[in-house]
């Protein structure tokens, strides 16, 4: 049995930053467990930037940032948490800059900031168009410097707790095979988002399957605001791969089949720079109403041609590369075909404003957590901030806790259980095929729980999801090897997806209003009287139980969200 | 008759001075007039870059400008010179500031880098300007029965930006050798290994290991001789091979020598008989 004081599950931005702060602030045994090598985590794909009010942001203030965040969240964010996050902005930015993140700079040598959707001030710090990549690489370097222990290519299976405290974990060692029991006093879950429930129509990596969130759900922890999935307006038409918001930030236009800059009908003032949900819905509406481009009218054009080659190369090199490689279009010459793509999970493991869950010693940070600082809709550039702020806060909380916590004594039952579960998967008769079922899951989610939603369709969708979840029990792992069994991992990931999808569907049906990313055709307006509250889903005896929880409102009373 | 500026580098000097005469004759046979770019200097051998990269760019911007002043494209026979000069050209073309700065220096000599000429290596020059057909027609003494291992060398294939052929699966050298009537051997184990020329004076061991691999696998593949379009790879094979503990004694040749010989120029004059490791084949 492996033994640590703190295990951080996840080696993305949240996990590494937590590891770094833990490593520098304690002599306790800390390990980072991650299913892919840390630098391969999805944080590395974040392009646009990270929001923060810096000391030289004259005219801007953490309050203004908080207000924009709350407004962007359609007033569903907890304002006390937002306040913490926005006030820590400058501190985390300077900290990572001091550690080597090559932020782009203004001529006077200070960190450059650019405008981003939904922000009243240009406060998005960026490093060319690879912000997340550089942050991830730098954090990794710093972890190596601090001799952080890594369990690379280990897959979290289950969380073990006694109803009060966390006791340990079980995990699969991908490289050698085998279920391991890990004893630990504290666990920080930083396993990222679950947008892969939309399988093919997502900007996320193949492995963003919400493993930690699903494990938490199965361990009896509540998930919060799961109905809120952010659709990024600009995914490449063929693959869902993202075209950064920076492309619009730098002045790109959105045009429909008539060449019209249609955003003027949806957000006359902010135009292309309106928040993501508004732009995504505008695009979906154009497509649904027959003004899409292409032979099937199923995409919209993102036009960068007027920016010129030099500017595109300087500011958006990756965008250009991806458009050429995955869409076959050079944005210097032609507009890029784009359509909305599932991008970010606002919902996740229910935590308080310091990242604590209801179980002592168990924390969640980053995209897998729902604090909530993003409410019904996350602002571009706020996620990386959330990732860092909560990575750091949970690390400090975990250190404090683990310092004093009693020894734990995780039972081997869970390990045996997981071993049996895996054996069963390999021995199943295999009535169902993983690729097909996975495709069905994605299509169901996109069709019934996509950009626009509606009661009857969603109900049908939920039925379908439950059916898929049932059928998923008959998926077989064909590969019976122990070593690097990617077939097994794919199935385990899929089983997590099918557990999470209904957790999105159930509150989506019950939230009979439109708020943030949750846009209902049958309830087009926000309904603060009945729904200014967080949804909470729990899995009890195999059933998804929904309840509600109040929103923390401090400074900013709800108002209409207009841009 | 095509006229092209010939960049000699360091490989047509000293004991190799006679080779330029041979080159001239050889090229005449395929209707090409070589005009020696006599004021050019050493390209820095990819070593001056260690001293200072800008110096390397300046030296080679000057070399290119000398050809431009004559209104000639530039033909380079050495892989390394080719790569170093082509890299400098790319830098000059892409970086306006650098170009201004270096042109300011060249002004004194009455030179200016304008980026107007093309830079060829032997391989793309033969393929694109001369054509394999014309080579075939010039052959008077086909290399019948010669089993020749084709060896490109690194700097014509890598990096991507300056490569003269498909770097993964090149064909020009085989085509040329075929045109000369040779039987080409291009599937031997270490055909893509580096010749080790450049590490001879930084880590000699590395060179000797490379030679051992390449020449060993050439031998295994049953070739009579290894042919390369690069005079440095050739030197590594011919001269450095003698530094090996147990030299396998594989003869080698610089591509133009084989061409000269196939075009009917005497073995003596072709250079083939001036190798340390004797070329026995006739």
């Amino acid at each position: 049995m492996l033994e640590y004081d703190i295990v951080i599950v996840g080696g993305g931005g949240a996990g590494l930053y937590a590891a770094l702060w833990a490593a520098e602030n304690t002599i306790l045994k800390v390990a980072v467990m991650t299913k892919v090598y840390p630098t391969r985590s999805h944080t590395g794909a974040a392009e646009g930037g990270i929001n923060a009010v810096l000391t030289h942001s004259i005219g801007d203030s953490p309050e203004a940032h908080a207000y924009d965040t709350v407004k962007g969240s359609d007033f569903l964010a907890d304002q006390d948490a937002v306040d913490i996050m926005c006030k820590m902005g400058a501190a985390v930015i300077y900290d990572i800059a001091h550690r080597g993140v090559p932020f782009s700079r203004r001529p006077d040598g200070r960190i450059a900031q650019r405008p981003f959707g939904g922000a009243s001030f240009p406060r998005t710090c960026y490093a060319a168009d690879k912000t997340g990549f550089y942050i991830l690489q730098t954090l990794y370097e710093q972890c190596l410097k601090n001799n952080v222990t890594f369990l690379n290519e280990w897959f979290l299976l289950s969380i073990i707790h006694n109803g009060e405290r966390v006791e340990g974990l079980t995990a699969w060692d991908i490289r050698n095979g085998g279920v391991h029991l890990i004893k630990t006093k504290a666990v920080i879950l930083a396993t990222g988002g679950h947008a892969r429930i939309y399988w093919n129509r997502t900007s996320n990596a193949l492995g963003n399957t919400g493993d930690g969130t699903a494990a938490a759900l199965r361990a009896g922890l509540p998930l919060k605001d799961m109905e809120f999935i952010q659709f990024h307006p600009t995914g490449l038409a063929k693959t869902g791969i993202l075209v950064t918001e920076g492309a619009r930030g730098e002045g790109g236009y959105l045009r429909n089949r008539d060449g019209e800059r249609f955003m003027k009908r949806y957000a006359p003032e902010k135009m292309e720079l309106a928040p993501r949900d508004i732009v995504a819905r505008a695009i979906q509406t154009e497509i649904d109403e027959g003004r899409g481009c292409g032979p099937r009218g199923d995409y919209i054009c993102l036009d960068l041609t007027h920016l010129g080659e030099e500017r595109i190369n300087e500011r958006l090199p990756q965008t250009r590369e991806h458009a050429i490689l995955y869409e076959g279009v050079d944005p210097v010459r032609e507009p890029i075909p784009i359509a909305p793509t599932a991008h970010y999970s606002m919902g996740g493991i229910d935590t308080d404003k310091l990242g604590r869950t209801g179980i002592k010693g168990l924390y969640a940070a980053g995209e897998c957590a729902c604090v909530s600082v993003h409410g019904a809709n996350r602002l571009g550039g706020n996620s990386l901030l959330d990732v860092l702020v909560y990575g750091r806060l949970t690390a400090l909380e975990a250190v404090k806790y683990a310092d004093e916590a009693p020894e734990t004594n995780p039972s081997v039952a869970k390990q045996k259980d997981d071993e049996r579960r895996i054996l069963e998967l390999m021995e199943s008769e295999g009535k169902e095929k993983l690729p097909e079922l996975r495709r069905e899951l994605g299509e169901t989610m996109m069709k019934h729980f996509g950009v626009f939603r509606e009661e009857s369709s969603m109900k049908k969708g939920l039925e379908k999801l439950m059916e898929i979840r049932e059928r998923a029990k008959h998926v077989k792992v064909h590969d019976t090897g122990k070593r690097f069994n990617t077939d097994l991992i794919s199935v385990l990931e899929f089983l997590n997806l099918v557990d999470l999808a209904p957790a999105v569907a159930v509150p989506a049906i019950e939230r009979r209003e439109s708020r943030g990313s949750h846009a209902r055709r049958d309830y087009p307006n926000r309904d603060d009287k009945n729904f200014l509250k967080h949804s909470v889903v729990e899995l009890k005896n195999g059933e998804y139980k929904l309840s509600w929880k109040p929103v923390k409102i401090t400074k900013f009373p709800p108002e209409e969200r207009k841009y | 008759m095509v006229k092209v500026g010939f960049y000699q580098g360091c490989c047509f000097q000293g004991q190799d001075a006679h080779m330029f005469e041979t080159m001239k004759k050889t090229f005449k046979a395929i209707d090409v007039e070589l005009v020696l770019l006599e004021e050019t200097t050493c390209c820095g051998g990819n070593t001056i870059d260690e001293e200072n990269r800008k110096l390397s760019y300046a030296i080679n911007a000057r070399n290119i400008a000398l050809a431009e002043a004559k209104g000639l494209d530039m033909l380079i026979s050495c892989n390394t010179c080719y790569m170093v000069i082509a890299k400098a050209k790319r830098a000059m073309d892409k970086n306006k500031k650098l170009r201004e700065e270096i042109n300011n220096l060249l002004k004194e000599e009455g030179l200016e880098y304008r980026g107007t000429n093309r830079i060829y290596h032997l391989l793309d020059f033969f393929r694109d300007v001369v054509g394999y057909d014309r080579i075939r027609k010039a052959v008077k003494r086909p290399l019948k029965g010669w089993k020749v291992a084709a060896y490109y060398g690194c700097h014509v294939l890598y990096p991507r930006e300056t490569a003269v052929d498909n770097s993964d699966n090149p064909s020009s050298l085989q085509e040329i050798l075929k045109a000369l009537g040779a039987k080409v051997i291009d599937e031997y184990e270490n055909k893509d290994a580096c010749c080790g020329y450049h590490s001879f004076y930084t880590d000699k061991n590395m060179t000797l290991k490379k030679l051992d691999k390449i020449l060993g696998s050439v031998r295994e593949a049953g070739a009579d001789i290894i042919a390369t379009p690069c005079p440095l790879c050739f030197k590594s094979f011919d001269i450095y091979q003698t530094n090996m503990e147990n030299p396998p004694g594989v003869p080698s040749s610089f591509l133009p020598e084989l061409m000269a010989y196939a075009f009917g120029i005497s073995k003596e004059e072709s250079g083939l008989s001036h190798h340390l490791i004797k070329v026995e084949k006739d």
Partner: protein
Amino acid sequence: METATLKVFRFDPDKDKVPYYQDYEVPVEGTLLNALLYIKDNLDPTLSFRAFCRSEVCGSCAMKVNGKTKLACKTPMKELVETWKGKPLRIDPLDHLKVIRDLVVDIDKPIEKMKTLIPWLVPDPRVVPTDPMHESIIYPEELEAYKDQIHCMLCFSCYSACEAVEDYERYRGPFAFSRAYRFQVDRRDIETAKEKRIRYAISGGLWSCVQCQKCLYVCPKGVKPAEDIQNLRGQAVRKGFTDKPGAKKLKHYVDWIYATGQINRLYLPEEVYGNREAREKLTKAYEEMGVEVWEVPKPTKGLMKFRDIYLEILSKEEKALDLDFSHVRKIDKMVSDIFKADICTIVDRVHEEGKGGKLIEKLKGLFGGDNG
């Protein structure tokens, strides 16, 4: 639909005694990664390979196609089919790394090797404020110095393709040098760390790189390890690590090119390895073959102006070595002894007098014919 055959390396050390190849027919569509995912979904779920971002940012999916290192998600199938002209495409795991299974290799070793080069920022407290609310000022131009190196995503393509790794166990790997160099040119990094990196780079094979440029070619992110290795060598020499052969070779180049516009291959063995014999032997061997040997290269026409440019740049730029004028004077003397005139006269006269000139006449024997 157009299809192609992938011959994929299979090996599960738990089950297979030896590796074998398995053929799969895949559509020629999208990238190589698409083809592998197609196999996994439709033909054989037991094939193991790594992939995550599918958009060339995570560095998971590097492998070899017919021996050439490729990033699967960056390599269009069409391009492969065109390059290999319908030949089957043999897919292998990366070189120089232990195979865990099929296309999955163990990358811990190169990461450990990289760690020995201190590839992280060691902040200089005089530049990086210790106060976390204080910003450190970095001018945009400063970022230029390491703008390529920071793109490295640890895909290990370069490690697989590297000629030095191939033949030198301790060699740290192209990417490792690039990632280390990135901090050598960061003003925030402390001098003592920079010094150490150089020391460790030297013991990690800095002078063993053969400059084949394969790392530049295979890097999917435009990192230029071979050039960073040159930069590091320059730094090493500048910091006084001049005892290695490579440093002496550099000195030869710097001095001789300045002096004559050319290097002198005859003198390299003795200036680098102190080996006089080599020159004598080679001279003798050539003379026996009837080839004339020049002691020194013919000084280039325009040499004096060339020298001006050379000096001007070296006087302004950061460089590895200062020109050694005493060496240059020695070379000048060699030249004037042979050509029986001082260097300026030679450069001018050789070229002004043209073909029929007296000096040329005198030199004919040395040059062996008309060299223009």
